[in-house]
């Protein structure tokens, strides 16, 4: 069973590596953020798999933190682009 998890993890890591190409190619910031989002989700899946493989449920908390905090980066990004989005949205 552990071997299965590890093999699946390898597969997901390969996925992550492949999606790196999109960060390199871009072309917009949104594309890159999208990739980051995929990274995040895959990362959570990977953490859960590895937690299962190592038999340490404690590692699930790591995934929990990731899922909990991922939203921060998104909101920050929205602000980043938002503050430059136009005169209507400029700082009051």
């Amino acid at each position, binding site marked *: 069973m552990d071997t299965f998890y590890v093999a699946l993890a390898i597969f997901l890591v390969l996925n992550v590596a492949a999606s790196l190409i999109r960060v390199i190619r871009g072309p917009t910031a949104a594309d890159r953020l999208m990739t980051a989002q995929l990274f995040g989700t895959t990362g959570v899946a990977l953490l859960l798999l*590895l937690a299962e493989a190592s038999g340490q449920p404690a590692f699930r908390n790591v995934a929990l*933190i990731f899922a909990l905090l991922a939203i921060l980066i998104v909101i920050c990004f929205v602000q*980043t682009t938002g503050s430059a989005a136009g005169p209507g949205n400029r700082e009051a």
Partner: protein
Amino acid sequence: MRPVEIGLDGLLCLLLLVLAWKALRAPHLYQSAIYFIALGLVMALAWVRLAAPDVALAEAAIGTGLLGVLLIDSLRVFARDSKTDPDAESEEPPPGEINVYPAGSARPSGRTLPMILVTASCGLLAILLVEAIIELPDGGGLTAAAQENLERSGVDHPVTAVLLNYRGYDTWLEVGVLLLAMLGIFCAGGRVGFAETRQSNPPGHLLSWLIRALAPLMILAAAYLLWLGKLAPGGAFQSGVILGSAGILLRLAGFQVISRLPPLAVKLGLLLGFGVFLIFGGAALLTGRAFLEYPEARAGELILLVETAAAVSIGFTIFAFFAYLNSRDQPEAQENHAREEGGNQKP
């Protein structure tokens, strides 16, 4: 060890190296930041592989909760202030990638020699270092010693025992470093105290609903980890960071928390962890024990108390880092800059 595990480790390490390389060499700052955040994620996986759950938790919390946010927030400053108009049809280069001194690609021509020198010496260092690492003996470490004394430390989780008891002095200084960094950031910013956020677009309905739901959840998670630290991976620092992240979240959503607090409360928040350590240390000295020595019988409760104070303080400080940097710039500084920049910034 099974080949499949070696494959996974090898792949992760390769990914680490590639991401680090890309983060250092990417043509745009925005890409650098994304690679770096991804690097943090892979590091968390590496910590899991190395069976270091406490570090994995810390990395996950700090990497996404503080560092990623700080970096992206800084990008906004670096990008916005350059004179490229972000509203211009921005496919090439896209917003967030403006500015940007293309470090690593286009370099002034006179710098090839130092570059070769640096590369060569780093290569040499790499060879020496790897050789040294391979030569290290197997085994060793202080696992056994830490386990042996666990009973006397008042907690059941060895990492917490090391952090709060065996090497509590380091942790005390660490809380001090956070305080110090806050003072340093005050110096760098040139003013003491917090301004309102320069929050621009109010979050949409979906987002604000989510924020309302998530912030209490984060605080709950922080409390959970704090309590968990006594017996399993978790503890003051991770909990503090999550607490701080909850603050950052609220701040991002436009809640003016810190700028409305009286300065005294802010100071107290920053000093709390440091002070509680000092009080305990001093009390231990007065009662004839060594500095920061806990009486064996009550160590558990005392450690929990100190940890709570430390977590609150860490969370507050980390939140303050962000709040200070994210707050509105002084207008005159911007004008200054705009004037100066007309001449020489345009690439």
